[in-house]
């Protein structure tokens, strides 16, 4: 081949290449592995590769008795562990046809909303860190620490609370609980505008987030995404509104479901910030009028569910968590299935990411708020 032809052949020849983002990568928040096909900086394909933290929780459930299942669900989506506990407890109560007292319902809802707040605070901090603003991490964690202290005092643990049990809650609330929650609301109402001041209005942040990772309403529905990701695409998906449970079913609580229609990373961000305000409103409405009542309905020593299938869904910080129990009348379920929000939300990632830059992928993953143990279980 002569020189000219060789030049011509090699001229401007670009090549796609593959990189592994993860399983050990700072932006994947755990052991998620993304097989990226990249052309320069432009993403051509995203293939999530799961299974690095698969612990077989669903299978483990088949060998545990129903009260024992609760502590496993803490370890799925560890940032909304109370919501997971609540979902299983509600499903078992539904099967046993136990009606828990209003006190239990109120406490569950308050703790659940606090969990949501704590989860969103952590998400806010970590998202800032993903975008390179490391300071937000510490501000988020400062406020989250207050909630964790409340949990520690009442539930005995800071993260994997293991608080809801079939038939009620494990302990009654601590005598400081109400006061501490009120103090927290006052504290956080003064700090949340700072979050906005630091990031929301910032021009760099807006440029990084607006128009990035757009998920249309149709795609959102077809991928089955839920929670803040769906709400940012204009899909009403709040289980607390659609199918109220716990205190939402008892009292008509006044709260809004933040809906944005852009479907980009920025609206997902805004949904979560709005949700923090709404969660505080919910807690404020409930915390002052926790009714008296039993904290635990009596159950048999060995809980056996009647034969049949039972399904319960709750709204965790990430979206809709479904708990499916298939019972054959024994003391452990025949089949247990969790419909986790993170898995469906992750499935929409490729649709969002193709054609955008590597830096955008980080912003998208940050706003999807992935918790890898929730995806893998």
């Amino acid at each position, binding site marked *: 081949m002569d020189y000219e032809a060789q030049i011509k052949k090699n001229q401007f020849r670009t090549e796609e290449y593959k990189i592994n983002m993860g399983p050990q990568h700072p932006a994947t928040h755990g052991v998620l592995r993304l097989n990226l096909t990249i052309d320069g900086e432009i993403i051509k394909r995203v293939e999530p590769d799961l299974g690095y933290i698969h612990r077989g929780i669903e299978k483990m459930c088949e060998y*545990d*008795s129903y*009260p*024992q299942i*609760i*502590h*496993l669900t*803490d*370890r799925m989506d560890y940032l909304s562990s109370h919501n997971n506990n609540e979902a299983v407890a509600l499903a078992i109560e539904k099967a046993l046809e136990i009606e828990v007292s209003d006190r239990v319902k109120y406490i569950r809802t308050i703790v659940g909303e606090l969990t949501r707040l704590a989860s969103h605070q952590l998400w806010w901090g970590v998202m800032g860190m993903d975008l390179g603003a490391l*300071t937000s991490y510490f501000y988020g964690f*400062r406020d989250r*620490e207050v909630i964790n*202290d409340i949990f*520690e*005092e*009442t*539930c*005995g*643990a800071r993260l*994997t609370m*293991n608080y809801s049990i079939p038939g009620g809650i*494990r*302990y009654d609330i*601590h005598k400081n609980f109400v006061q501490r929650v009120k103090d927290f609301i006052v504290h956080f109402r003064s700090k949340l505008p*700072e979050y906005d*001041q*630091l*990031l929301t*209005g*910032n*021009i*760099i942040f*807006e440029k990084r987030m607006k128009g990035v990772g757009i998920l249309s309403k149709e795609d959102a529905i077809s991928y089955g995404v839920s929670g803040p990701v769906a709400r940012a695409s204009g899909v009403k998906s709040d289980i607390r509104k659609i199918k109220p449970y716990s205190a939402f079913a008892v009292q008509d609580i006044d709260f809004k479901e933040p809906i944005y229609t852009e479907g980009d990373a920025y609206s997902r961000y805004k949904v979560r910030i709005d949700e923090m305000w709404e969660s505080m409103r919910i807690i404020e409405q409930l915390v002052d009028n926790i009714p008296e009542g039993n904290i635990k309905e009596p159950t048999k020593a060995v809980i056996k569910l009647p034969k049949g299938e039972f399904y319960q869904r709750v709204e965790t910080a990430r979206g809709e968590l479904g708990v499916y129990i298939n019972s054959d009348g024994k003391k452990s379920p025949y089949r247990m299935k969790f419909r986790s929000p993170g898995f469906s939300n992750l499935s929409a990632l490729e649709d969002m990411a193709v054609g955008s830059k590597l830096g955008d992928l980080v912003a998208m993953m940050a706003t999807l708020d992935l918790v890898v143990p929730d995806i893998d279980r």
Partner: protein
Amino acid sequence: MSYFSEIYRGFKTLINGFRVTHKYFINARKEIVTVQYPEERPVIFDRFKGEVIMPHDENNEHACTGCQACEIACPNGSIEIIWDRVLNEETGKKKKTIDKHIYHLSMCTMCSQCIEACPTGAIIWGQEFEHSVTDRSELTKVLNNPGSKVRADVED
């Protein structure tokens, strides 16, 4: 003119963010939230689930009858009870007595099942949180003290 207004807006928002960090930088002394850990001890709440402990009274007696309810309730097999039937000299009957109440802290998920299952309140939550050891085997603990026996008033 949108070109210049964009630049102006950009500067304004950047300074806005600057104000937050500046505020904390200036007030660093009173805003610091981190704890100087080994010197400053964190407040541990009395419900905190640190580890399972078995309280003994001054006569080196505990309340564990060796009924194994905790062992059955534990989802992870963290508790093993080595027991024996020992002849009680007063009644002349053989009675189930624990030899060793073994607790694997390394496997424990702090789920509270054992403590709720215990009919005599022999095991409770301890608030110890500094569990780091250099050898994994040190996390396997024997909860009953050597030479301890069950309290006389504890019913089976």
